[in-house]
């Protein structure tokens, strides 16, 4: 029978449909895994934002991935508490985000809850000379900034 670790390794193949450089584990949305039997497994996930339209696709992709690895019954359960936070994102995931052109969350929300005072560096030229265009970007999890040095408009994955 496969172990919890085996399942987590298989889930490394499931990416976020909106930001495909990140896996769902980079994001920290896989909260628990329960191997019920040889053929049956439950994956417990939590949404990033309440209205995140990617959740259905993520559930479906988890099912496909585990079915492809020999499971016959895959249950995906969504929980809301504790509420997802960017503090659960992996460091390696944050680096992948930056390479992809999105500035990763800059602070730990518990240690530094006042994000409005944070300096958000440009993912292209690393300049800290940037300005907020909108708190709400192309998806719920991102804000829109502009670099005043290289003039690149960019997404910032906001601390949440």
């Amino acid at each position, binding site marked *: 029978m496969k172990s919890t670790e085996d399942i987590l390794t298989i889930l490394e193949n499931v990416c976020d449909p909106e930001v495909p450089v990140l896996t769902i584990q980079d994001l920290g949305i896989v909260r628990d895994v329960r191997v019920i039997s040889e053929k049956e497994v439950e994956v417990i996930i939590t949404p990033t*934002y*309440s209205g995140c339209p990617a959740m259905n696709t993520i559930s479906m992709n988890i099912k496909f991935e585990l079915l492809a690895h020999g499971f016959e019954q895959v249950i995906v359960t969504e*929980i*809301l508490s504790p509420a997802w936070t960017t503090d659960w994102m992996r460091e390696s995931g944050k680096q992948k985000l930056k390479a992809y052109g999105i500035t990763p969350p800059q602070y730990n929300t518990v240690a530094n809850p006042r994000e409005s005072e944070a300096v958000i560096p440009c993912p292209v030229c690393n300049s800290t000379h940037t300005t907020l265009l*909108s*708190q*709400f970007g192309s998806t*719920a999890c991102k804000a*829109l900034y502009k670099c005043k040095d290289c003039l690149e408009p960019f997404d910032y994955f906001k601390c949440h």
Partner: protein
Amino acid sequence: MKTSLLQYILHLADNSFIHGHRLSEWCGHGPELEVDMALSNIALDNIGAARSFYQYAAELEGNGKTEDSYPYLRDVRAFRNVLLLELPKGNFAETIARSFFFDAYQQLFYKALMNSSDKQLAAIAEKSLKEITYHLRFSSEWVIRLGDGTVESKQKMQEAILKYWDYTGELFSASEIELDMQNNKIAPDIASLKPSWEKIVSDTLEEATLSYPLRADGAWFQSGGKKGLHTEHLGFILTEVQYLQKSYPGCEW
């Protein structure tokens, strides 16, 4: 008890759903691209919260109910949202005024609901509170920008604040269901949230150089939504929202 809880959950769901729907009407019509995206994002958060509540209601009620049964298959009189949220979206200042009043309320309300003895309601509150913080920042910043802006924007913002004021009392006036839930430690005491709400509103209006609507103690406020007595506007929303399910019952795509 179970019936009251179900009614209470639907009241919370309907508030988020109707507010989210009204905001979604701005999608593609915002005064500028960033505002368009912001209002659509906020609409999505509200509809997301509504889904969590409707899913919980369906789980509680059973009988083959799903999250879609409530928004698509109930008639006007079954909805329990407050009147403030169903009024037409109006001009941009009016949407901002209405959103600001509701966001300030929701932030206080969700903070209190996190202490609910009902674990699922507490979880939804914890999740939504993080999102509401962004909403309130957006709406209050716009109240200030429009109020302390040009002569015209100030006038429009002030008129909008006055126009919706009569609808804010219902937020803090508990229905029988809410009192029942409060006695069971499921719902917070919403009347007790009013002083904190008034503080947020008066501080923001002051910064916006706008007048705070002065009302005598015990002044009359519009109400009825919590009892299912709605304005004519809700019927028009539902006609649009429910069109597909009414024309093609059970349709899925």
